[in-house]
């Protein structure tokens, strides 16, 4: 089988830089990381210098994702040799045990870390993840709530929105996203996700809030299609609601109409030239038209 460098005609520096980019973007493309990382380590390990340790960590986690315990163990052993007393490496050992579904042993590792260092976020996150993996959703939520009350750590909040949506505690998801928006005011994704949660919660007040946040997300990034669609949907629903006054109705119809134009324009731009996309454009036009009818 051809090597990565042969297939894509890249040198080892490009492979190293690609791994760094994936690390920074927090991508979970584990198959690719294993392909690139394994080759990089085995063929060019000596050239990497101190970068090799973080690459070992990245490849090890990706290897766990791909069931490559052989590779994971190799990386782990190198890291253990280099950093014998590290909590970070101990967490990796724990993760390997999790991958092998040896949850009790994994928990022992994490408890040992927490005994030494009760503020260790990573270990706490792993313990909660174990509960989630075991299907103990109620306990996982309880632990998460407890932790969130005591520590305002935005890193932990980032994983939180997924939990509540699974278990329909949209209120908790909204709370987490509010915290995230406070600490990351320019992040359009958090705005848009918050708007989606509010929309799902339903009710006129939440719909109006969701419309505002969709609009805010658009202001931060005018190419966010979800925000655009969301603005259209929320404005349309508000305008169609029997509980609103004439002025609110009129305003929301204006917002919806504006959003519809933008959506149509975006599709036309994307569909330039392709036959298949012309179908999408037509579908969107029809969809928007059909919703107009129900609105009035």
């Amino acid at each position, binding site marked *: 089988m051809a090597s990565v460098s042969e297939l894509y005609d890249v040198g080892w520096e490009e492979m190293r830089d690609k791994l760094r980019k994936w690390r920074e973007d927090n991508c979970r493309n584990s198959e690719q990381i294993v392909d690139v990382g394994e080759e990089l380590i085995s063929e060019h390990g000596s050239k990497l210098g101190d970068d090799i340790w973080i690459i070992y960590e990245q490849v090890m986690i990706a290897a766990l994702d791909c069931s490559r315990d052989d590779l994971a163990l190799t990386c782990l052993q190198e890291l253990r040799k280099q950093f014998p007393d590290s909590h970070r490496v101990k967490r990796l050992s724990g993760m390997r045990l999790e991958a092998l579904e040896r949850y009790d042993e994994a928990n022992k590792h994490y408890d040992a870390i927490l005994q030494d260092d009760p503020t260790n976020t990573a270990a706490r996150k792993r313990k909660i993840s174990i509960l989630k*993996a075991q*299907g103990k959703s109620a306990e996982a939520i309880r632990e998460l709530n407890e932790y969130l009350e005591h520590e305002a750590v935005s890193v932990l909040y980032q994983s939180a929105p997924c939990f509540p949506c699974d278990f329909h505690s949209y209120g908790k998801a909204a709370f987490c996203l509010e915290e995230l928006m406070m600490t990351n005011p320019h992040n359009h994704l958090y705005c848009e996700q918050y708007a989606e949660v509010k*929309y799902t919660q339903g009710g006129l007040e939440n719909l109006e809030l969701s419309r505002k946040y969709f609009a805010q997300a658009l202001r931060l990034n005018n190419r966010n299609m979800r925000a655009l*669609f969301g603005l259209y949907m929320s404005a349309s629903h508000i305008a169609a609601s029997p509980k609103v006054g004439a002025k609110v109705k009129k305003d929301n119809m204006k917002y919806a109409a504006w959003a519809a134009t933008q959506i149509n324009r975006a599709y036309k731009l994307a569909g330039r030239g*392709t036959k*298949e996309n012309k179908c999408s454009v037509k579908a*969107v036009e029809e969809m928007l038209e059909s*919703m107009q009818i129900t609105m009035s």
Partner: protein
Amino acid sequence: MGNHCSVCSATNQTCVPLYSSNTSEIPLGREALHWVDPHVQHPLQLLLFVLGIKSVGDRSVHCNETTTLSKALLEADAVHCPVRGEKKAYCKMLLHAAKYPHCAVNGLLVAEKVKEKKKDSHSAPILCVDCVPLFHGTLALAPMLEVALTLIDTWCKENRYVIAGYYQANERTKDFRPNQVAEKVAARISENFSEAAIVMVDNSRLTMSCFEPIVLIYDHHENKWKSRDVNTDCFEDWLEAQKITSALLEGRSYENLIDFDNHLDDLRNDWTNPVINKSVLDLC
């Protein structure tokens, strides 16, 4: 005049034997199955049995006509399987699950619109000819789901399809039960299509070779979703479906699968998946 059974030599007046044909298309039907039924239980067994018949005078079946035979057998058996899957639908569903192994994924199943509903609703099975992968990760948020349902519904109307079902693969390997999201979406689909089904992927049995169907099909009975037995008869052509899905998984074609989330990230991404559709056709 009785019909002679080559297996038990009994004379049976109510059955119609298999009959030979010089054309490539054998008009076999349920009646033909009935003749051999006492001796074989499973359609595939029947196939082997038929292949074993070299000739029974006028009533032989030529081996190169077995594809049509198997089709007829599956059709005959279809009374037990009102909603069945075609290879393209099954394939893309599994590719979607394989693309995002760490997330929950979901999507819609579409069927060809049947012009008139015959009085005997058991006559034609509803064939899910295609699927549209929807989301990965967070499945439970309303606005994009509404947009997707409406958009895909419009697309269906243009192509004389109808949204006939919903599939979901949960985040955890061992969890294959439909959750609230699945039930809500399926209820919505049922408004337009009374026999809507929920198809859950059994992640724990997902392998490269796909030797057996790894889905559970849930039908709505008496306000509850109940799972039904799934076997290879629930597919139009299981062997083809298995072969194609396996080939695409090994070739990592799932990297090119587009779901509605990908489409929202970049409108140029086409959720009808023409590239994958072509690969499926090429492998047929």
